[in-house]
């Protein structure tokens, strides 16, 4: 019964995505109540202001309770999943700090060493825009600004 309901729900989501793709461009998926972070095992839905999403080319996705765990996953995918490799990653989204909207990782700057704590402690906080990044550094005492390509495993707090 539960499974059937799940299938109907999943079917509806797929249909909605399929219908909305040509109209809306691409809308990132939202975590359901029981989705867990593959890195730390925590439920993701209670932290809507920190959610990070990896979408794979086959349409499936992984949810994380912060950019930190998302980077851990990306840097060492073999440790967390057997089915997917780096080549399967289609899109990566993080929740921007000031707008609390999901944004592409290429559109944000990651700020290290700030006093803002995520669900898993110190974070690489995603902030969009040069001005906002500067304000964030001033307000929350960030140490460095990194674009997504510049983040290395040693930057993960």
């Amino acid at each position: 019964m539960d499974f059937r309901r799940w299938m109907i729900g999943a079917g509806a989501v797929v249909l909605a995505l399929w219908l909305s793709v040509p109209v809306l461009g691409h809308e990132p998926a939202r975590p359901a109540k029981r989705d867990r972070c593959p890195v730390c095992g925590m439920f993701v839905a209670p932290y809507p202001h920190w959610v990070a999403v990896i979408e794979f080319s086959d349409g499936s996705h992984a949810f994380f309770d912060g950019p930190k765990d998302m980077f851990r996953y990306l840097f060492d995918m073999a440790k967390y999943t057997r089915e997917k490799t780096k080549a399967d990653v289609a899109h990566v989204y993080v929740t921007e700090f000031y707008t609390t909207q999901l944004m592409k990782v290429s559109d944000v700057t990651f700020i290290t060493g700030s006093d803002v704590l995520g669900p898993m402690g110190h974070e690489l906080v995603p902030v969009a825009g040069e001005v906002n990044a500067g304000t964030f550094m001033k307000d929350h005492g960030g140490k460095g600004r990194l674009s997504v390509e510049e983040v290395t495993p040693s930057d993960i707090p």
Partner: protein
Amino acid sequence: MSKHLKILEFVLSSLLRRKIKNLGIVAVFSFVVFILASILFLTHAFKTESLAILEGAPELIVHKIAGGRHDLTALRYGDEIAKIPGVGRVLPRYWGYYYDASTGANYTVMGATEAPRSTLELVRGSFIEAGQRGVCVLGEGVAEVRLAGVNGTVPIMGADGELYRFKVVGVFRDLSALLTNDLILVAPEDIREIFDMPPDVATDIVVQVFNPSEVANVAKKIKYRFPELRPITRTEILRTYETLFSWRSGLVILMFLGALVAFGILAWDKATGLSGEEKKEIGILKAIGWETSDILALKFWEGAVLSLVSFLAGLIAAYAHVFFFGASVFAPALKGWSVIFPDFRLLPYIDPYQIFVLIFLTVVPYIAATIVPSWKTAITDPDVVMRG
């Protein structure tokens, strides 16, 4: 089990034999429970109400301060505040208090902008359309007090002494009656006219902040950039409500401290000794073959019957008092500045934790207090007891 039922039967008939004395105990006991339970229920209901209010409250409200008092806020501040990172929409609110002489109640008149509309639920009619003038939407409480339905009129005396007549187009309600029972929504242009507000100001400004962890920071920045403004965050309001209601319930408890002391004396009197007659009764029971344990069971049942009857009576009376009669005894002390508030009803709710606390404060000590002296008498030789 049947032995206990027989003892219970004996207890009930012996309680009935001393009707006046036991009724006195029940009366005092229920009164104490009634007072305590009323205060607990009422404080809890008020806290739930204020939480319900805050559910729909904006994260941040900003208004101007002049000489330490609330002042009308210029709209230009809104444009500046909107530039702060993390701030979403900035909406002006137009509102004020209006004392209606004919019903003797205070109403809140508010401009029907987007800010109040989001949490309201329309019961009848429709909301005010943009640009519509001379119409109003009433909270359910106001509609009842004024006996005004859809298509009725509500007259409001303006600041210029003119009488403005507003046609009622709808009636709304909210989760919390405490907040919206006194609310009248009119068009923002109308409110400027009746309160004689200049065109470039609002009563206050509601600021949407996307990230809850950034609210305090935004408030700090507003305060730093505009020292004449006062930002009020939702958590501050919540804290104020909490302190206010806790402090007030403490005050009411203090008022009824006399009743609590009287109850204490009653229990103490019971605990320190039995009357000669009661001792004699125990002696006779022992002499006709009752065991000490039977006497203790007897006294336990006696205490249990008295205290449970009083407890339930007090509790039911308190429930009716708070949730059906609007806590008419203490509401003036607890409700706040507006004593002549339109009538409202609190959401009935009972917290099991509170009931347990009440039981442990009243029933348990009473039963214990009645058993100890009986046990002392019961272990003495019946002959000595009966001779006194």
